[in-house]
């Protein structure tokens, strides 16, 4: 019993001691094997990530050499002529994801606050369950729903109304196809709401009750308590939840492909059709025949990886700059 609790103290100490008893030496071997396995899995994950980067770089080398930086800043995508520029895809990916975040973040945080702070206890489990169910819907189903329900609704009602009221903004001009950037942003928003909501709800539930009691004790209102004591305390967790949603939005392929209109053009209007990096890969990779064409598509894959890593990196910086949960909470 005593040996057991000692062994629990730390691997390093354990390994440093000479193996005196049989039990101890066996445990030493076990620890070494354990350590080896853990290390191996770490290296394997790193090797996979590195291998992925290397393979993408290798396969896209022909396109990188041919087009150089031009690939990033031109919007001419012509497989027949062998001219490739990825700007519309980068633009479409970023804009559709941002649009999704703009819609989904207030909605999800509102739902999470309601579920964690305000809702009567009998309401919480069924509502939380329903929201989480949304995450289980396959994306092709979202896409079909988008084509048959969302797009006609946008075309016949939402877009004409937006054009009438906000039509002076370049964002809401052009013919209302229904299909386009707005539809893609909306579908993505619906898809990422369950992720952001359920993670945020967990974060808010993890905020200690003493936080709320202290704020209420100082005479804060319900909203002030939530804002000062709860949201502030959990903000790094909340940003993490939003990041998870963003990651999902950047990489989503099927549903977006079905409603975005797949037109490689940079257009300011949200009514115009667009294209994303993941969509062009899904659309064109299978039938790409020339080497340069395949290489250009692989380079888009590489770019998607780079953009995702860059966006995540930026968001990490943001989390660091606002500080951990402790500082805000204990203030």
């Amino acid at each position: 019993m005593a040996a057991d609790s000692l062994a629990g103290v730390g691997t390093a100490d354990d390994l440093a001691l000479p193996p005196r008893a049989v039990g101890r030496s066996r445990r030493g071997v076990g620890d070494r094997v354990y350590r080896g396995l853990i290390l191996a899995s770490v290296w394997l994950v790193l090797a996979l990530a590195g291998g992925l980067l290397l393979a993408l770089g290798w396969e896209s080398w022909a396109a990188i050499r041919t087009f150089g930086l031009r690939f990033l800043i031109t919007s001419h995508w012509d497989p027949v002529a062998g001219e490739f520029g990825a700007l519309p895809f980068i633009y479409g990916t970023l804009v559709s994801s941002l649009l999704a975040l703009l819609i989904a973040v207030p909605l999800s945080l509102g739902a999470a606050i309601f579920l964690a702070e305000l809702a009567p206890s009998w309401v919480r489990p069924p509502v939380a369950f329903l929201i989480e169910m949304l995450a289980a819907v396959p994306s092709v189903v979202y896409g079909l729903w988008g084509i048959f329900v969302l797009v006609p609704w946008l075309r016949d009602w939402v877009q004409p109304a937006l054009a009438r009221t906000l039509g002076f903004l370049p964002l809401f001009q052009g013919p209302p196809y229904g299909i386009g950037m707005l539809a893609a942003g909306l579908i993505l928003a619906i898809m990422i709401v369950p992720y952001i909501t359920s993670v945020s709800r967990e974060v808010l539930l993890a905020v200690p009750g003493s936080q709320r009691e202290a704020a209420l004790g100082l005479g804060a209102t319900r909203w002030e308590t939530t804002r000062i004591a709860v949201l502030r305390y959990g903000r790094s967790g909340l940003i993490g939840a939003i990041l998870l949603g963003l990651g999902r939005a950047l990489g989503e392929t099927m549903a977006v492909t079905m409603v975005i209109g797949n037109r490689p053009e940079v257009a300011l209007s949200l009514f115009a059709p667009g294209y994303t990096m993941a969509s062009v890969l899904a659309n064109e990779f299978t039938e790409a025949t020339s080497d340069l064409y395949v290489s250009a598509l692989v380079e888009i894959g590489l770019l998607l990886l780079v953009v995702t890593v860059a966006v995540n990196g930026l968001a990490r910086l943001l989390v660091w700059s606002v500080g951990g949960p402790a500082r805000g909470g204990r203030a």
Partner: protein
Amino acid sequence: MTKRWWIVPILLLAMATLGRPGAADAQMLMNGAGATFPYPIYSKWFEEYIKIDPEVRFNYQSIGSGGGIRQITERTVDFGASDGPMTDEQLKKAPAELFHIPTVMGAVVATYNLPGNPQLAFTGEVLADIFLGKITKWNDLRIKALNPSATLPDQTIVVVHRSDGSGTTYIWVDYLCKISPEWEKEVGRGTSVKWPVGLGGKGNEGVAGQVKNAPGSLGYVELAYAITNKLPAARIKNPAGKLVEPTIESTTAAAAGAVKNMPDDFRVSLTNAPGADAYPIASFTWLLVYKDQPNESKGKALVKFLWWAIHDGQRHPAALLYAPLPAPVVKQIEAKIKQITFSGKPLLAAQ
């Protein structure tokens, strides 16, 4: 409890043996990869062919024509499949001479959504100008001239095309290239092209879904898809000056019209083919095989299958809404299959 772990491998072994009937009698596995368009008819053939020759099993991956061409060029499969003929450049990259064997035919139809669902007719020139963005309204005089009895609204034409690379697109733009020099110069032919106007839908269902939903839209889908989903399909004027409805028969007629000028390697485009009843937007789909087979027994099995496919196999396409090959073309392909060899020896004579 813990002692029962030995049951796991035994169960797995039992499942493995049960799951593969006849695995013991050394079956030959024939690997193929390529086009998605003929996948339904090919899987039907492979299923039927087991009854003819139980010793051969086929494994066909419908990864797309591009993948099929790449894999046969790298010899990682026994046969490839493509909806578009290989280019001279691609053929040069292959390590040995490749044959194109036509198997069945498909057609592409123009489908649309207009109030009242009129039966429309188009010429290639009008279609090309719509897809170039030069004709933008349904009540354009040139469309009216072709459809004097239809009521055409003053509405913008919403062009819908395939967003995914596809043989269907290849056939469609190949036709537009032949009709319109401007299309050939500005856009060209390929499985994906830079569309001057329009929205992209993924797959036949994506295009059909957008056309069905948006009044005033015009798109193109496979004939089989249009028939099964009862989509309106426009009649197209063929080179003989006749407005032809897209059907299985008018598709086969397109190949019959091309018999006279059939090139020896079958790398022929059947769009805008001569013939009074020929539907002008039709095409072969091909299997790609090496002229000189690397493996004698596999080569033998392959030519036997090809022979069956162009003869008895031609009973099956119509049920799946592909057009069968016309008899004169079958004769021409027979000669080609007879040229397939193993180290210089013809394989078909051996059977």
